[in-house]
């Protein structure tokens, strides 16, 4: 029994946003949850998976988000309640299916739970999924605090069943990964019976064919459904107003910006001057509600993250309502009051709000600011991202760099998404030179591999993780093989979806629920496609480099090298040292010609630091993971390793 399945209605708990969403789904009697790991969304599936037996759920880490969406949809077609959980990139992957799903409609309540990452704390983009709701013409709900994260998720199923269409619930990192107090509701006993009715008339929404065709008919129907949602939004408890009857300034906001706006009003002590309209139903906007609050004042501050969505939608309504409510002055992104990139925080609301209210606000005394900034610059060296101590990727890229450099043909790596994306950085010896989306490393390399006819002689090497291989690389690899593209794919197999918290994937013997699953063999798949395949342990430098040299020699066709070594943070490995490391200070050449600090200057493992008194390297025993790789790196053999019993 975990907190999430506790039956005590009215109990108060401290929950992470994602945990609150999971609880909301449980309180709604969800039956099926599918997703693909993606920060900041992963904990929703993880928490539901932990209670899957207890709460009678089927929870799946699907091979990719498109399939996850399809799996969740099937449950909905079979009259069960389901959710598909993903991060912003995942929605892009699933969007083709979702477009058609929004046209075909659903049966059991189905939610798409999209967790965005404004500020790109764990992504290489800050895409905004809210726009999909408008594009796909489905309702959009955004919780503005932790209680709403639960309550809204629960209610969203009712909305979905009322409309017979999929509903999008959108969260952001600062809600999903933050924690706050949540009061629990009732946990129902729900009978979950799966039945797909299909023997009725073609167009029957409950017993017909589930498809988005005939398009004009279904599209009009979809728009009518959306109009029903707007009616429900007009008096939704998720749109709240706090503040004076006649405020000087009205803040319109949603999502985590609600919390920042509240904070700003509190700090400026302006709750008698500023009204806060927090919208939870952000697409489509309920026009009557907006009319009521837009009438209250002429100064409107719209607070949201990244590119304008709320702003544009409010402005359209305001323009239509202008004859009734007058002309408004908006402070938002288009006039520069709020930035259109990076995440928001309380100060980014305090500053424009103080200006509008004519308040002189000083966050910190000026001398404190000057001194603290000076001290931070000199006293707090910035922390570059790096592979963990003991990470097999550090060893893999060491060898890949070695081989590409010695091959001397300006070879390069087309990177992909995972911890190994850091191959772009010094921690991965800057080997990766392109980096986009899941599977795109192999796709892009497949393209490079055909440019020989235009004089391209540089070897293109794609990398991917074991999870990424299944997610999106397989079609790209098939493309390369079929077209005889001259590329090498290196699969960095660390036995899990590591970046996001070590979740399982189709290459492993276990599923999200911890139950036995059939493992697909990456080597067999590549070989059956017709690629030339070899395997090595990345911790064995000589063998790995020789195998890669040998594969690069084979000019025609696709080569695959699987580098297999488990992630340092996996439950099997974490906290267990294989070796005890030691440095012979007399043998260390350090800063001299012949070494020039190869280990600390280039390998840069956090567990191997520089002792500036002795002018040698030193093992930091609090951090060293005992993988033994640095012993293979030292040109003088000054680093030794002893196996731990």
């Amino acid at each position, binding site marked *: 029994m975990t907190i999430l399945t506790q039956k005590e209605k009215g109990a108060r708990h401290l929950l992470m946003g994602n945990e609150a969403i999971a609880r909301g789904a449980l309180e709604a009697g969800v039956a099926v949850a599918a997703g693909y790991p993606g920060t900041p969304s992963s904990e929703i599936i993880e928490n539901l998976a932990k209670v899957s037996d207890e709460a009678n759920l089927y929870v799946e880490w699907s091979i990719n988000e498109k399939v996850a969406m399809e799996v969740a949809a099937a449950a909905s077609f079979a009259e069960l309640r389901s959710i598909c959980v993903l991060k912003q990139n995942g929605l892009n992957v699933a969007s083709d299916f979702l477009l058609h799903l929004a046209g075909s409609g659903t049966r059991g309540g189905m939610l798409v739970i999209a967790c965005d990452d404004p500020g790109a704390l764990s992504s290489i983009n800050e895409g905004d999924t809210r726009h999909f709701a408008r594009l796909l013409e489905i309702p959009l709900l955004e919780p503005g605090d932790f209680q709403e994260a639960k309550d809204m998720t629960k209610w969203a199923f009712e909305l979905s069943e009322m409309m017979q269409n999929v509903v999008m619930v959108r969260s952001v990192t600062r809600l999903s990964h933050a924690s706050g107090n949540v009061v629990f509701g009732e946990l129902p006993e729900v009978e979950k019976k799966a039945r797909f009715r299909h023997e009725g008339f073609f167009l029957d929404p409950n017993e017909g064919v589930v498809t988005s065709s005939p398009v004009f008919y279904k599209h009009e129907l979809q728009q009518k459904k959306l109009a029903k949602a707007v009616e429900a939004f007009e008096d939704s408890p998720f749109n709240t107003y706090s503040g004076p009857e006649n405020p000087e300034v009205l803040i319109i906001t949603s999502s985590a910006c609600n919390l920042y706006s509240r904070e700003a009003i509190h700090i400026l002590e302006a709750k008698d001057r500023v009204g806060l309209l927090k919208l939870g139903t952000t697409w489509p906007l309920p026009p009557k509600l907006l009319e009521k609050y837009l009438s209250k004042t002429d100064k409107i501050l719209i607070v949201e993250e990244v590119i304008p969505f709320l702003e544009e939608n409010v402005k359209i309504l305001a323009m239509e309502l202008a004859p009734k409510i007058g002309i408004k002055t908006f402070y938002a992104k288009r006039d520069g009051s709020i930035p259109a990139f990076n995440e928001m925080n309380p100060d980014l609301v305090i500053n424009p709000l103080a200006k509008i209210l004519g308040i002189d606000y000083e966050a910190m005394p000026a001398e404190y600011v000057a001194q603290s900034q000076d001290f931070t610059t000199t006293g707090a060296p910035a922390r570059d991202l790096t592979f963990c101590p003991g990470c097999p990727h550090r060893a893999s890229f060491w060898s890949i760099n070695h081989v590409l450099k010695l091959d001397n043909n300006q070879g390069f790596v087309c990177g992909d998404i995972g911890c190994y994306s850091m191959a772009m950085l010094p921690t991965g010896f800057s080997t990766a030179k392109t980096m986009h989306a899941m599977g795109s490393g192999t796709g892009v390399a497949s393209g490079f591999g055909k440019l020989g006819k235009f004089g391209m002689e540089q070897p293109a090497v794609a990398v991917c993780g074991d999870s990424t291989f299944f997610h999106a690389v397989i079609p790209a690899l098939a493309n390369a093989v079929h077209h005889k593209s001259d590329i090498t794919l290196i699969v960095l197999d660390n036995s899990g979806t590591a970046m996001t918290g070590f979740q399982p994937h189709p290459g492993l013997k276990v599923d999200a629920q911890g139950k036995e699953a059939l493992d697909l063999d990456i080597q067999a798949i590549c070989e059956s496609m017709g690629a030339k395949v070899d395997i090595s342990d990345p911790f064995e430098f000589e063998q790995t480099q020789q195998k890669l040299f040998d594969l690069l020699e084979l000019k025609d066709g696709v080569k695959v090298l699987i580098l297999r070594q488990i992630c340092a943070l996996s439950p099997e490995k974490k906290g267990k040292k294989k070796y005890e490391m030691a440095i012979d200070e007399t043998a260390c050449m350090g800063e001299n*010609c012949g*070494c020039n600090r190869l280990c600390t200057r280039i390998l840069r493992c956090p567990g191997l630091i520089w002792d500036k008194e002795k002018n040698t390297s030193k093992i930091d025993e609090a951090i060293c993971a005992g993988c033994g790789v640095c012993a293979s790196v030292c040109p003088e053999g000054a680093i030794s390793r002893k196996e731990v019993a």
Partner: protein
Amino acid sequence: MTQILGSKELMAQVRNKDLCTACGGCVGLCPYHKAYKGKIAMTFDCDMAEGRCYAHCPKTETDFEALSQRLFESEYKGTPLGTYRRITAAKAGPKMAGDRFQNGGTVSALMTLALENSLIDAAVLTGKDGIVPEPKIVTEAADVVKCASTKYMAAPTVACLNEGAGQGYTNMGIVGTPCQLTAVAQMRLNPLNKADFKDITALTVGIFCTWALDTRKFLDFLKQRVDTQKITSMDVPPPPAEIFVVKTADETIEIPLDEIRAMVPNGCSICPDMTAEWSDLSVGAFEGKPGWNVLVVRTEKGGKLVDQAVEAGYLVLDDFPEESLQHLNLGAGNKKKRAQENAERMDS
């Protein structure tokens, strides 16, 4: 004294300008310069202000005066053949009778004796893996002849000398081309003034060289014309024949020299040294006398070894006629001139 810089400057002045001839003088000293298939690359950046890599490189500025003083204790004169005591014709003597040589076998004979009489504890020679040159450290006299015959392809032989020093040999011999021995000579100056520097080079034998071939380009070229596994010999017959001859078990292929010259590394065009001036002894093919070598004795040590070799039956000497000497001078002088012209053209 020339200025010693670091690998950043080495890359800028030599490698990135395509002047590297892969002599290997920078390889085996550190983890950054490594050789693979006849080409040398840097695995990572090195930001040392002064490095042995730069100091050893024959394509960075060379202090001929310093080398001359170190090796010969005399002034540098800039003559076409460099400093020498005597030049003779030579070939392997009766003690080497069981072996077959491309030319005279003089180098093999000298190195075999040097190992046998422990003048050196190891010899750095260029062996072969098929037809691909492979530098190696040889400690058994009987293994010397396995490394015989002209390689034509540039190989990073000096890397082995650097590695041998690391392995603890203290009296190494090396057979090398002019650029390789220039690197060795610069190394012996202790360019970084290290207190713990040891000169582990006991014997240097140079081989004449007008040009070498880029290993990778040449191998690709050959692979398109012949099964490289079956090649038994390669040779450039003396002028006026302008051909390169490749023999396999089944056939003999003649390739116009012009096609071959297209694969000469750029760096060879600025090399002023035809007869390997910075050595104890230098050996080349005696074009006028097939089956014989030209042997140039430069140092006292070299001379002593030659005398020993003759006495012990390893070497047979003969006169080197004046005409041949003039011819040799002309050839070496022309190489120096071409090098000067090419260097000036590159700088402009």
